[in-house]
Each structure stands twice: as C-alpha cells, then as structure tokens.
C-alpha cells in the first residue's frame, strides 16, 4: 500500500500548520511595523520611519520565505488573514518598546516550531529555521539597542535620537 501522504510532501501536517501560523505572525509583524512607520512619519521622526518601513519589508520577506518553502515541498501554504493593528502610539519610546515585544514573540514562536520539527524528525525544516534563529538574534539585539539609546540620549535631543536610532545595526554575528 502506497504512502500517499509522504508521496505528496515530506512536511508533516503538524509542521505545515506551525509554519502557516508563523507566516501569519510574520505578516502581522509587517503590518505592525508599517503602522509604526506611518506614525513616525506623521510625527516628524523621518529616520525612525525609514527604519520601520525597512523592518516592515523584512518581515514580509520572512513570511514569503516560509510560503515558498511550503509550496516547494508540496505542502499547502495559506495566505493569512491579517487583523487590524494599532495605528496610534503615545511616544517614540513606546513604538520601540512595541517593536522589541514583537521580536521576542517571534523568537519564542520560532523556538516552538523547532521543537515540533525535532519531535517529527523534520531535519529539512529545522535547517531552514536555523536561518530564522540567527535573524531573530539580530532583530532582538537591534530593538534592545534602540531602547538603550533612549536612556543614553537626553529627551530634549529627540531629533538627534531619531537619527541615531536609524543607525543601529548588528555586525557581530557570533555564528559567522
């Protein structure tokens, strides 16, 4: 008797479900960052706006990477529903706090999917997710470093702060 499920795809259903949930999470992140970019833009924080526009594109790229992976593996990738996200924020600091919280949630989610892959002996998907582990380490570093700048630069120099926030990068990837 043929194993029709395996002939269709090497990706087990539990992994497929988890990856589709991750696609949705990445797209929600993209939407949140776009809202943050819009808020920064209309409040005169041009550099931070640019930072969040770029972040929004990156998150969409993360979702598409998973989407293409599922399609290439013969599994079913689902275009996700994206619920409404907050459009207004109290302060520039609260925007960056929200960004860090979002990155932590994504990191936790990636870790949970890797646990599912290990349970299912899905080494190919785990290999793909290693890229996300490194990416999340970088994303969390940048979000955390941005929040540090709020403590290091006086509040009356808000436009200097805006400029410095957009310059934060991570160049010390310990995996490379």
């Amino acid at each position, binding site marked *: *008797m*043929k*194993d*029709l*499920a*395996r*002939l*269709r*795809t090497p990706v087990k*259903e539990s992994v497929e479900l988890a990856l589709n949930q991750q696609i949705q999470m990445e797209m929600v992140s993209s939407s949140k960052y776009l809202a943050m970019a819009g808020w920064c833009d209309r409040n005169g924080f041009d550099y931070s706006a640019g930072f969040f526009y770029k972040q929004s594109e990156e998150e969409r790229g993360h979702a598409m990477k998973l989407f293409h992976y599922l399609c290439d593996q*013969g599994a*079913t990738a689902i275009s996700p529903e994206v619920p409404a996200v907050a459009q207004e924020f109290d302060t520039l600091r609260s925007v960056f706090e929200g960004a860090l919280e979002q990155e932590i949630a994504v990191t936790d989610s990636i870790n949970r999917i890797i646990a599912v892959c290990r349970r299912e002996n899905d080494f190919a998907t785990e290999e793909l997710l290693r890229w996300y582990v490194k990416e999340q380490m970088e994303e969390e570093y940048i979000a955390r470093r941005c929040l540090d700048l709020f403590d290091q630069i006086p509040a009356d120099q808000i436009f200097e702060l805006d400029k410095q926030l957009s310059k934060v990068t991570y160049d010390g990837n310990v995996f490379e």
Partner: protein
Amino acid sequence: MYTVSTRSTDWIEIFRTDKGVVYQCDATQRLILEFWDTYTALSARDFAQFRRMVETVDVRQMALSTDSAHDVEILTPPRSERCYVLTLCEIIHLRELLSGAQMMLELNSLLRECGCTLP
C-alpha cells in the same frame, strides 16, 4: 478531475464508519470518499484540504443559532463537482470518518518509516 461512479476491486479500505468509507487506490494515487452513497476521488492534498474544511465548520454556531441559514453547511471538496449540503449531525459523521482515515494514513506512514509495508 478524476471521477468514479462505482466501487473498484483495486481499492483498499482505509477506514469505515456506519455512515461511510474511505478507500485508497494505489493505481491512481487517489483517496476515495464514500459518503451519501456517492464516491468522490481526491488527491492526498485535496483530501487533507477537505478534511480541514470539515474540521473548521463552526458546529457550535450551527447548534446554537436559530437562524435557518445555520441549519446546513455547504461544502465542496477541492477540484470536485461534488457539493455536500450537510446538517450538524452529518458534519459530525463526516469528521469522524475523515479523522479516522487520516489516522490510518499516518499509521501507514509510520509503518513505512519503520521499514514495514502493508500489502
């Protein structure tokens, strides 16, 4: 689309309940759903998709709503001309049948991974 009207002797019975049967046809690589005295042949992907469609029907709303629109659910398996108009009880019966079949397919995968093969 692959259509069938009668049962073939080549089909392997995967799972059976009082209300229906799911067969596997190795020659065409299709799963055949016998429900309501009809046969619907589905690829493994379409079968999984249809099972998800049945699983995501809001049976709680069907049970509690007094609106006649919620008395039945209309489901069309992917790439099929079949259209099921199902009551709450029929949804539950179909879920039981499809879930049971899915479990048997997973068991077959496990056996294959262990190096065992079913005839």
